[in-house]
């Protein structure tokens, strides 16, 4: 037995040695390189690319697992960098370019950038002369994406290691803003402390009520099956064979979309319904000269979804704001075009289920600036189409290969102007077949639900309007077609 253990340990160490030696040898011995390849260095050629396209995530405190802020930090990952950029897996970007839109949040690499990184790696990943380095980017401290002026602590949340069914139900906690005067905010960022367990944290702002219970977690204990799926079916529909959903449960699931998004009239307060999601950055209204008003005394409703990691942890979220002393010229409003409603039911083994489309009509002049598709692991694609009053259709965003792991904001470089009567029409498909590698079970019906193995259709978007525009008129309430979710 001892001999076996010794042998096993030796083999393991030798394997590590082989890997380590490969890395070390490769790191210290430049491979034969052509004159062209030798000229490509980290500081001169690669670092500018990393600054522009990678460092916003690849720095301490952000979602990426390693820093790319320096040669020393990036060097061990050189080979992986080449592999990922050639495969166009990194930086993640999913917008279809064929519709002619460009996005300021696009961090994808040009072919020239990819070639530069590949050439650098093939040449032994030389550092080059530090004097060639571009000035270091001054990133906000402590992992923030914005440099906040004001920060409010969210409620600390203990995430158990292994809860029953591996489920922690969504929890809502109300906290005071601490804002005792009307405040214009120009960006908002929700920053969890433990990204590993944070599925999402969404906030909205609500008028204060004196019977509020601050810092008090509210949740609903739900009946779930062995797979953690909420049990909510009633007898099957005669027409489709699909088990129907208890209407009361359907309403409970998503009274206004994800976790209680505010009604369109409230979508302007603080910017509307704002979420931290993996891969999502701050909501920054500044590039558009815009802001959002948080009235004095309002409270923050925080909807939290944590996923256990097998190790108990505590998340200490913070909510950061930049503020403006003067009202901006534009107002930012976030909402969503419908959501998965009563008609949403994905049949087993269906590879291309078209959800009931979401549609919303504008009631005022506005500019569509941001879109953020949200679905769960069976989400396949989502397309936002602006239908102008004259019938002209304009695809503002098409994400043909949606990836649940990257919840991204697509911010238009050139906002789409919309007039009253314009509609935003959103279609999404879902893959509930074996061809979806993330599908936990292709053999069951899939309904709307809070957990990732249930589904959602949440086409979030942001618009800017003139500050003088009454925010309650931006969207025509009742004009939302979402199959019953609103």
């Amino acid at each position, binding site marked *: 037995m001892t*001999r076996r253990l010794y*042998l096993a340990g*030796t083999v393991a160490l*030798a394997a590590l*040695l082989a*890997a*380590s030696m490969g*890395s*070390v040898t490769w790191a210290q011995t430049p491979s034969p390189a052509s004159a062209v390849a030798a000229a490509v260095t980290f500081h001169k050629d690669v670092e500018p690319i990393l600054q522009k396209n990678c460092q916003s995530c690849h720095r*301490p405190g952000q979602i990426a697992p*390693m*820093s790319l802020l320096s040669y*020393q930090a990036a060097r061990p990952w050189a080979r992986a960098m080449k592999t990922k950029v050639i495969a166009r897996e990194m930086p993640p970007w999913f917008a279809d370019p064929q519709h002619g839109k460009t996005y300021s949040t696009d961090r994808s690499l040009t072919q020239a950038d990819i070639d530069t990184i590949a050439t650098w790696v093939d040449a032994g990943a030389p550092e080059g002369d530090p004097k060639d380095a571009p000035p270091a980017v001054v990133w906000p401290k*402590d992992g923030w994406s914005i440099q*906040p*002026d*004001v*920060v*409010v*602590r969210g*409620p*600390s*949340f203990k995430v*158990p290691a292994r*809860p029953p069914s591996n489920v*922690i*139900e969504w929890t*809502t*906690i*109300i*906290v*005071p803003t*601490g*804002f005792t005067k009307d*405040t214009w905010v120009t960006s908002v960022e929700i920053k969890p402390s433990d990204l590993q367990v944070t599925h999402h944290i969404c906030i909205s702002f609500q008028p*204060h009520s*004196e019977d*509020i*219970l*601050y*810092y*008090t*977690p*509210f*949740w*609903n*204990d*739900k*009946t779930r099956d062995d797979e953690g799926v909420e049990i*909510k079916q009633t007898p099957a529909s005669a027409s489709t064979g699909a088990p129907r959903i208890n209407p*009361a*449960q359907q309403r*409970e*699931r998503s009274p*206004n979309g994800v976790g*209680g998004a505010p009604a369109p009239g409230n979508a302007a307060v603080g910017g509307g319904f704002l979420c931290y999601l993996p891969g999502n950055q701050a909501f920054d209204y500044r590039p558009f000269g815009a802001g959002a008003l948080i009235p004095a005394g309002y409270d923050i409703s925080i*909807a939290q979804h944590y996923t256990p990691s097998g190790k108990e942890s*505590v998340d200490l979220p*913070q909510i950061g704001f930049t*503020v403006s002393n003067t009202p901006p010229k534009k107002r930012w409003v976030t909402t969503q075009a419908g959501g998965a409603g009563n008609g949403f039911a994905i049949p087993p083994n269906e590879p291309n289920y078209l959800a009931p489309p979401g549609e919303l009509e504008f009631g005022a002049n506005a500019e569509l600036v941001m879109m953020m598709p949200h679905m769960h692991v069976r989400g396949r694609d989502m397309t936002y189409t602006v239908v102008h009053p004259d019938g002209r259709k304009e695809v503002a965003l098409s994400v043909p290969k949606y990836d649940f792991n990257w919840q991204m904001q697509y911010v238009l470089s050139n906002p789409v102007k919309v007039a009253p009567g314009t509609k935003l029409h959103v279609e999404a498909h879902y893959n509930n077949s074996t061809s979806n590698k993330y599908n936990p079970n292709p053999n069951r019906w899939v309904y709307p639900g809070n957990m990732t193995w249930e589904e959602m259709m949440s086409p979030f978007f942001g618009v800017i309007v003139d500050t003088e525009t009454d925010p309650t008129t931006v969207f025509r309430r009742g004009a939302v077609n979402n199959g019953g979710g609103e």
Partner: protein
Amino acid sequence: MIKTRLRTRLRRGRLGIVTMLAVAVLCTAGLAAQGAGTQPRPGVPVEKPAIDPSQEIVATGCLVKEGDNYELRNSAVLIRPWVAPGLKPDAVGTPAPSPSKTVFRLMHKEGLDAHVGHKVEIAGVIQPQTANVPPSPDTIVRSGTGPGTATAPAAAGAQGAGGAQGGAEQPRFVPRLNNPELDNKPLKMVSTSCP
């Protein structure tokens, strides 16, 4: 040749302890290099965050004794948002208590007995909370609970935690809440009467 020898020695389990130690050192160096810039290192002090808003809140309410435990009820809550240096401290207004029906469970009982029934001010840090797991003895089942309020009926509870909107069919979920626990400092007396 070297590979063959290594394989043979591996198979026979004869790699010496010195060799193994050398391997371990190399592996450690390699792993350290890979982790550079991403992980705090032992012995190196972790830099204090530049932005570190206070976790302390101040609650003013009625002190109540329930069995052996103490609660602060109907608590007005004051928080102080962190404000960046260079901004006026009152950039978002002068901090003021926000009235609520919050019930804080108090962790420390010393000196509380004399103030039961009084209106008191207590500073402290709210303890990390959790939801449905593990079931807490303090968990309260609230049929008809609204969006984080003490009194909102179920019919109005469409927002927030997803309170049911009412209706004939009863959903298979149970709204619940946990009262927060406060790591309380010594209290300040406000008045002997408690509305």
